[in-house]
């Protein structure tokens, strides 16, 4: 069952102080409302993963890794690879995170990212068949939140996208013509994982009546609702998710989408420059 979470106690004084800063057109850390904290994307940080990326947005840190396995395709897509996204909020990342299987927040984050990658066909799964109908590449994207200072979804998407775009496919040594068994050599990685297009996710938080991108943890705690908007490099909207216990008006939704489309190109440019060969 999904249960109303305990809300952090925010003194009215602090809430009003945050609203006063937002009224001046700034986040509480002084940057303009429609800008992100400083973003860093480092790829290939985990040598044993076929692709990996460590992303920080301010103090928020997320590590994503891609592993490739040989497996069977789904029955309805016999000639396509398989994409699987998982997320875990490490107990190291926050005093409020507990060890154990992913909770509803981690599951929601993984599923929003999964849909935003799958629907616009970010990974060219049709190029990942090894023995059509029998053996394909299984692309595992695993996302670990390492430090939580707000906006985990945007950071996780940057990390997932950068890990995928920098991943290299292990060499296929041999395919048994009778059994279809595939031998691979993980030591030798060859081509990059084929990527059709880049996407990013922009989460817009509603604090009072203000709409802001990239809220930090303190701001997130006072946000009544958040709207995650995934945008592809061609400007199309490839996923959306309203989160939190509040609401948006129709106008607010339209403004949030406008904000997201406005800042998305800078995020996509950041991923692209980080995955340059």
């Amino acid at each position, binding site marked *: *069952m*999904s*249960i*109303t979470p*305990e*809300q952090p106690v925010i003194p009215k004084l602090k809430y009003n102080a945050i609203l006063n800063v937002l009224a001046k057109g700034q986040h509480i850390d002084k940057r303009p409302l429609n800008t992100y904290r400083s973003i860093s994307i480092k790829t290939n940080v985990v040598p044993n993963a076929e692709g990996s990326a460590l992303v920080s947005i301010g103090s928020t840190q997320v590590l994503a890794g891609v592993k490739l396995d040989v497996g069977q395709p*789904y*029955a*309805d897509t*016999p000639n396509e690879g398989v994409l699987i996204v998982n997320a875990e909020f490490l107990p190291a990342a926050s005093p409020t995170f507990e060890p154990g299987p992913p909770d*509803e*927040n981690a*599951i*929601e984050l*993984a*599923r929003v990212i999964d*849909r935003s990658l799958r*629907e*616009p066909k970010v990974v060219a799964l049709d190029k990942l068949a090894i023995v059509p109908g029998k053996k394909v590449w299984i692309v595992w994207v695993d996302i670990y939140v390492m430090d939580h200072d707000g906006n985990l979804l945007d950071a996780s998407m940057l990390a997932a996208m950068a890990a995928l775009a920098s991943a290299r496919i292990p060499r296929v040594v041999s395919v048994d013509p009778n059994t279809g068994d595939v031998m691979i050599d993980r030591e030798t990685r060859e081509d990059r994982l084929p990527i059709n297009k880049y996407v990013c996710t922009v989460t817009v938080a509603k604090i009072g009546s203000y709409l802001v991108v990239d809220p930090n943890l303190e701001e997130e705690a006072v946000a009544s609702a958040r*709207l995650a908007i995934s945008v*592809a490099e061609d*400007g*199309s*909207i*490839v*996923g*959306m*998710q*309203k*989160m*939190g*216990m*509040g*609401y*948006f*008006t*129709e106008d607010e*939704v*339209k403004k949030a*989408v406008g904000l997201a*489309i406005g800042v998305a190109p800078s995020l996509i440019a950041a991923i692209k420059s980080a995955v340059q060969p």
Partner: protein
Amino acid sequence: MGSSSEKPQLIIDGKRIDGRAFDELRPIEMEVGVLKNADGSAIVAFGNTRVLAAVYGPREVMPKHVALADRAVIRCRYRMLSFSAEERKSPAPSRREIELSKVIREALEPAIMSELFPRTTIDIFIEVLNADGGTRTTGITAAALALADAGVPMRDLVAGVAVGKVDGKLVLDINKVEDMYGEADMPVAAMPSLGRITLLQLNGVLTHEEFVEALALALKGIRKIYELQKEALRKKYVTTEEA
């Protein structure tokens, strides 16, 4: 998933696969007060999608540590019965059900005046009896009725519907085939009198213009569903008075 059939043509001569116009809802049935034990209950059907919602509470919270000092907690479970879809669904909670339980709870929270009942719980159970697309929005529509039936004070009802993009056209209230083979599925729920959107998801690809149009189409459908909800509530209490 699972079926390997080819994509059917979803728009034929300006009509949808089931003969509806682009902005036409499926036949909707609503019945309030269908269970004896629950404090509130409702069954809502959109075409072949049929969902039961039951509400218990405000009542004592077990275990006690879940209680909140300043408001009621809302507990919500969305679930598909094992025989509700084409393939048998394992009764164990799936990741999809866990996510939907959360977004449905968050769609209903803004409507419930939970601050009136501190240290209690309001439990909402949504059981999908038969799935043919739009189960989460049908579930929200039914849950709002069940909450009202339970006498839980609310700011407004919540009604929901999914808009889809099929064969390049935006269509209201998509069924399962349109969801499966369409380009986009966008479930929306709102409190119509207050103009508040409480659930918004998009699974698929839309241009900016299409999105704005899709949202307007969803809200138009939601206003119609809202009228049916009020009618269903009225019907229960009017017949009770006459009896």
